[in-house]
């Protein structure tokens, strides 16, 4: 899923400083699961911003709605009415959600309430780690299901680098060496011979280095 983290109350308050009637929009999918932009987080942020503005002597009228998914027009329709009554919109969705709302409501300023971080998984309660870079050309089969593009600090396709200590990456922060993980995994599934193959330089053109990507699946179009 997409993992995001909330902006500080001060930053959020400053973003909407010129407005006095604002709609806070939560998203019920990824950012709800990562506890950053769901109904509860929208509620807490609303209390905080309303109180801060009241203390400053510039009260603000905030309305809240949380839709199923901000990245689909079908669900954005649900917020058309409250949006029409607001001067500005604050999206608690990922970057895609913010842009989807901005496209759908061309006459309204749309501000982000979150910092979109990465594609990751939940390791334990309230701990998320990055697992996928979205490079557009998946190489996980070669590496036993552990991505060196995302999880090796040097993004080596022919590792390890020799800088790791025991199982730890030399970059630090307690992060494990991705290549140690790959070795352990390939050993566990009897595919260590894969490490003998030289992996050619990766073609980065399907990644975002090329240009913003677009996928059209003709068989599903109507």
């Amino acid at each position, binding site marked *: 899923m997409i993992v995001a983290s909330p902006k*500080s*109350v*001060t930053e959020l308050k400053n973003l909407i400083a010129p407005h006095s009637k604002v709609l806070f929009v939560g998203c019920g999918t990824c950012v709800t699961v990562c506890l950053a932009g769901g109904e*509860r987080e929208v*509620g*807490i942020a609303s*209390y*905080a911003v*309303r*109180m*801060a503005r*009241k*203390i400053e*002597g510039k009260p603000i009228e905030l309305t809240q709605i949380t839709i199923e998914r901000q990245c689909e027009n079908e669900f954005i329709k649900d917020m058309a009415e409250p949006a029409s009554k607001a001067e500005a919109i604050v999206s608690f969705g990922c970057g895609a959600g913010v842009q989807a709302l901005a496209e759908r409501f061309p006459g309204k300023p749309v501000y982000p309430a979150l910092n979109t971080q990465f594609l990751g998984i939940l390791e334990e309660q309230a701990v998320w780690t990055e697992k996928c870079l979205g490079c557009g050309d998946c190489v996980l089969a070669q590496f036993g299901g552990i991505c060196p593009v995302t999880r090796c600090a040097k993004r080596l396709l022919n590792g390890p680098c020799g800088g790791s200590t025991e199982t730890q990456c030399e970059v630090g922060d307690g992060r494990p060496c991705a290549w140690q993980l790959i070795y352990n995994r390939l050993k566990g599934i009897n595919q260590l011979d894969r490490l003998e193959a030289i992996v050619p330089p990766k073609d980065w053109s399907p990644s975002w280095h090329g240009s913003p990507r677009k996928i059209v699946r003709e068989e599903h179009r109507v």
Partner: protein
Amino acid sequence: MIQLDREEIATAAPAARWEPRIIAFCCNYCAYAAADLAGSKRMQYPANVRIIHTPCTGKIEVEHILDAFERGIDGVLVAGCLEGGCHFLEGNLRARQHTGRIREILDEIGVGAGRLKMVNLSAAMAPAFVERVEEIVEEVRALGPSPLNPSRQKESAGKP
């Protein structure tokens, strides 16, 4: 949800003879029973505190506390079981994490972290309950009215 009348707060605590108004969220299994025991033992504690009976401090949502502050309350006390003694195992530990986060928010928006406090008690600790209540009343009295207290809002609105 807490039902406080804004006018009642304003009239009961005008700036000249302001008295702190404090809400104590008390866990059913410890602090609420301690408060009850304090009453049975005829122990006196400041009348500034209004007690809200909760099933466990872990069930107190962040919004409940923020709502109280938005309505102009001057301080909030969260009273849960001793660590390791929660009836639901770790509700009081969650409450401590929640209150820590709320204190950060209160500091950031200008209300002040000192207006929110969490304490741990057992059901038998009536004297400790009285002491904790007296402490928070004095601490909040020293801080003055909340910037969101209607009496203070009126006061600042009157200033040029």
